[in-house]
């Protein structure tokens, strides 16, 4: 059953989240260069999260002529995107590390395309708002 498999994978993830040292007991240690590459990917996602969060604060602080509601919606959307990115970065790092230790394929993910679509939609929305002149 795919569903039970997913549930089991989620439970394993959560166990690792709350018992961080446990990951070293699983499988065998991979070539350290692969682990470092995984770490850099994690850091790149974390930077993406910081960029989204900083963008959220910037929208609220540097676009005072934007309508209050519109501004809050954009800010919250960017902040939520940043939080999602941060959570996903650590979850993906753990799953990749475990896959490497067990010699399995790396986990497939549709997060990058979802994020890309989200950021694109946000940009289009901002363009529309600016064109319609929804300012105070």
């Amino acid at each position, binding site marked *: 059953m795919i569903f039970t498999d997913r549930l089991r994978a989620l439970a394993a993830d959560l166990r*690792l*989240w709350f018992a*961080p*040292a446990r*990951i*070293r007991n699983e499988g065998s*240690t991979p*070539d*350290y*260069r692969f*682990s*470092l*590459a995984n*770490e*850099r990917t*994690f*850091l*790149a996602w*974390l*930077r993406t*999260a*910081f*960029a989204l*969060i*900083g963008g*959220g*604060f*910037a929208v*609220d*602080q540097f676009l005072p002529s934007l309508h209050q509601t519109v501004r*809050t919606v954009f*800010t*919250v959307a960017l*902040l*939520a995107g*940043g*939080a999602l990115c*941060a*959570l996903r*970065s*650590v979850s993906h*790092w*753990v799953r990749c*590390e475990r896959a490497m230790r067990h010699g399995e394929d790396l986990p497939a993910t549709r997060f990058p395309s979802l994020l890309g679509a989200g950021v694109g939609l946000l940009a289009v929305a901002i363009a529309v708002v600016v064109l319609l002149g929804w300012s105070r």
Partner: protein
Amino acid sequence: MAGTEEGSTPVRDPGLQPERTRMAWRRTTLSCAVAVVLAWRQVLLTLEPTGTEVVLVALLVLAGLAFLTAAHTRMRTLAAPPSAGPPRTMTARTALLTTACTLILVGLGAAIVL
């Protein structure tokens, strides 16, 4: 294994993996600093100067310092000479700590803006 040669004289990894990872940490610390400064500015602009403001700024600085400490510890591990053997894998604690710092920024921002 990279980092060691026949005759067990450790040499630098030609791919410079530890150095690249160390610089990735530095870039990330800088991104974190920018986000913390913007959040700080948000607090100063939005709130009246009361006790809440001081508490929120203190929380921000604490989160930033926690991130800095985690990054610094990791960077020192990665800066060890090749003779010390291959660097240890990042611990899940470090990963969780840095993510927690990021989430504190978001929580704080959401609390102020909403």
